[in-house]
C-alpha cells in the first residue's frame, strides 16, 4: 500500500493523532517532566488524564480508535509501583487480550499498547512515545492504518 515513499514519510503523513491514556500518577508525572525538560516529541500525541490505567476499558479504547485515533496507548506506573496497587497490571492484561482480538480480526495488534513510565524521568514517557511511533510505523507499512481497514 505504501506508494514509493519511505515508511517514515508515509507514516508522518498518516499518523496525526494518537490518544494516550495517562494515569494520574506516574503517567502524568512523566509527561510533565518531559515537558519541563522540553523533550520534543511528535505532536500527534494527545494525552487524556484518567485516575489509573486500570480505569481505561475496551470501551474507551475502541471509542478512540472509532473516532479517528491512529493508535491508543495506556501509560501507567511501573509494574509493582502502581499507586492504586495493581491497576497497571490489570490494564496490561486487558490490553494483551485486546491485542489478541485485533490479531484474530486480522488487524495489526500494534494499534493498542500498554506502557509504563516513571514520574521522575521524562525520558521514560518520551521513550514510550518513540516506541509507539516505531511499532506503528512497522505496523502501518506492513498492514496499513485502521482507516485503510488494513
Amino acid at each position, binding site marked *: 500500500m505504501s506508494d514509493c515513499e519511505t515508511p517514515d514519510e508515509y507514516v508522518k503523513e498518516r499518523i496525526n493523532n494518537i490518544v494516550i491514556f495517562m494515569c494520574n500518577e506516574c503517567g502524568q508525572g512523566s509527561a510533565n517532566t518531559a515537558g519541563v525538560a522540553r523533550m520534543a516529541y511528535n505532536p500527534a500525541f494527545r494525552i487524556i488524564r484518567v485516575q489509573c490505567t486500570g*480505569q481505561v*476499558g475496551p470501551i474507551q479504547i475502541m471509542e478512540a480508535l472509532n473516532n479517528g485515533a491512529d493508535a491508543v496507548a495506556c501509560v501507567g506506573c511501573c509494574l509493582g509501583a502502581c499507586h492504586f*496497587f495493581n491497576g497497571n497490571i490489570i490494564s496490561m492484561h486487558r490490553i494483551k487480550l485486546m491485542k489478541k482480538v485485533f490479531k484474530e480480526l486480522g488487524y495489526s495488534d500494534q494499534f493498542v499498547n500498554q506502557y509504563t513510565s516513571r514520574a521522575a524521568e521524562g525520558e521514560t514517557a518520551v521513550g514510550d512515545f518513540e516506541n509507539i511511533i516505531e511499532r506503528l510505523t512497522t505496523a502501518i507499512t506492513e498492514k496499513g492504518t485502521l482507516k485503510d481497514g488494513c
Partner: protein
Amino acid sequence: MAVKEEKMEKSEVESEDSEEPRIGVFCCHCGHNIAGTVDVAQVADYARTLPNVVKAEHYMFMCSKPGVQMLKDSIKELGVNRTVVASCSKNQHGITFAKAIAEEGINKHRHQQVNVREYCSWVHKKEQDKATAKAIRLVEAGVNRSRKLEDVETRRIPTTKAALVIGAGIAGLRASHDLAELGIPVFLVEKNSTIGGHMTQMNKTFPTLECPQCSISPLTNGVANHPLIELYTNAQIKAIGGSMGNFEVDIEIKPRYVKDNCTSCGDCSTNCPVEVPSEWDSGMSMRNAIYKAYPQAIPATFVRDKKNCIECNTCVNICPVQAVDFSMEAETKTVKVGSIVVAAGYSEYDPTEIEPYHYGQEGYEDVITQLKLERMLSPTSLTNSQILRPSDGKIPKSIVMIQCVGSRNEQVGNKYCTGVCCKFAIKNAHILKDMYPDTDVTICYIDVRTPGLNFEEMYQSTQEIGVRFIRGRPSEITRNPLTGELKVIVEDTLTMTPLQLDADMVVLSAAMVPPEGIGPLGSKLKVLRSKEGFLKEFHIKMNPTLSSKGGIFLAGTIQGPKDISESVAHAGSAAALAAAPLVRGYIEKEMLVPTIDYDLCVNCGMCITICAPAAIDTDEDGKPIVNKVACRSCGMCMPSCPTAAIQLINFTDDQLYDEIIAVSGGGAVCE
C-alpha cells in the same frame, strides 16, 4: 468502619444537571512559554464557537492576581458555572483556579484544567501550526469534559485519637514523646527487649563528643514513665487494616518469661550456665540466656532467651521474687489508631560481601566494623574501653580505617553515600589518637564529606592531632599466612603511589542499610520502598516525612541514612504531621467515588473482586456497596462492570467519551 458506612450511604452525591452549563474558557500565554508556540488568540476564538461556551479569553498570566480575577468576574457577571483554563499542569496551577472558583461559591470540581504547556507548547516548539491545532483539540476536549462535570462534596471523616509508633530507637522515642506531649495516646512497639536502639550502643556522639547514654536517658525514662505512652517490647506488627485516620493494628507481643515484679537484682543472670554472644554488644561480649542487654537498659526487667535456654530452672528457683515464669505465652493485642509513625531504623552493612576485605574470615579477626569499635570504646564494654586486638588482645600500634564500605559501591548495589561514616570515622579516629598518642591512625577515604556546622572543625582538629588521611580506596586487606600480619593496600591517589600500610587493626566504616525484616513490614503497611530498600517518602523535598500512603509517616533512618540530629528533627516533623489530623479530630476527603446504578447492576461481583483497597463490599441482599472512606478513587471498578452500572464520578464513560471524541478528532459532541 461499618457504622460510618451507614452514615455515608444516607447522603447521596447530588448533581446539578438540571441547569444548563455555562462554560468560561481561558487561555494562558504563560509569558512566551505557551504563546511563543501556540497561537492562543486562535485557540480562544475557536473555543468561543463551541456550544455552551459563554466566554473565551486569553491572558498573559492566568495564575497572576488579575488573571484569577478574570475567572471570578466571569462567574459574577456571566454566571459561568464551569471553567476551563488552558495553561499548565493540574498539580501546578489547577489547584489555584479550583480554589478561585470555590471562593465564588462554585464547587472546585467544576474546574477543568487543560495542560497546553507541558503537553503541547513546550514539547512541540518546532511545529507551531501543529501545536496550535493540538492545543485547539485539547481545549475542545476540556470543554466537552467540563460540560458534564458534577459537584463533588468534601466530607469530614472522624479520626481515632491514638497513634502507633514502630521502633523505639532515638527517632521512635522522640516521635512518641512528642505525640504524647500533644495529648495523643501512643502505642510504642519495639522489636527488641530494650528501648534506645543504636544510640545506646555508641560511645560518644559527634561533633561534641558527648555521652549518648546521658543524652538519651531522659528521653528513654520520659517515654517509659509517660502516662500516655504504652510500651510493648519484644513485640512486632502482625497485621494492619483500615485506612488513613482509622487503622486497626494487631501487635504480637512475645513473652519475656519474667514478670514485671522483677527487681533486676541480676541473681538469675549471674547463676545462668548458658553464655552466648550479646547482640546488643554486637558480639563483643557474652550474655546469659536470661539477661538484661546492659545495666541501664529500659525496661529494667530481665528477659529470657528461649532459643538458648536449657531450662535448668536455676533462675526460676533462685529469683527472690519469683518473677521468672516459663509458662508465659505470646499474646496478640489489637489497637485502633489514627496515624502510624514508622521508625524502624537501620542495620549496619555486613562487609562479608566485599571479599577483598576478608571481614569475618578466619585469620582476619582484627578486621572490625565501626560499631564494634564503638562497643570496645564504650564505658560499659568488656575491655573497659580499651582498644584490644580481638586476635591477641594487644593494643594495636597502627589502626587503619576504611571508608565507603558498602556505600558508594555499585557492586554491592548501594549507590548512595551513607553520609555519616566520614563523621563517625573522624570522631573515632580522634578518640583513638587521644587515647593512644603513639598509635598511628590512618583514614583511607575517597572523599571526606563533613558538611554543616562543627563537622569541618572536627575534621580539622582531627588532622591537627596527627591522624593521617590518605585519599584512596583500599583495594584489599592482605594477610601474610606465615606471620599473620595484615597489610592494607591502597593508592595514595594524590601522589600516585601505591602503598602497603601495616595494620594491627582495620576498622571498616560500614554503610547504613535498611533494617532486617523491612520487607514484611513494608508489605504489611502497603507502602512503597525506594530501590535501596528504605521506605519511600512522599516527596523528597516537600514532604520527606509522609510515606506513600496517607496516615503513615516515616521517622529517622528508615527513610534513608541520617545522623542522630537529623533523625530527631525528622521524628519531630513526623510527630507533628501524624498529630495534626488526630488533634483536629477529622480528615477531609473528597468524595470522588463511584456511584452504583442499581437498576443496571446485576450483582456479578466483578467490582468487588477487582477493588484493590477492598472498598466495595456487599450488603445483606448481595448488592455491592462502596465504602467511601476506603475508596481511593482509582476507577478500576468501571471497566470491570459488564453493565456499566458503576461509574466514578467525573470520570464516567459518558464524560470520557466526550473528551475522547474531541481529542481523537471526531469533532464536537453536540454537532
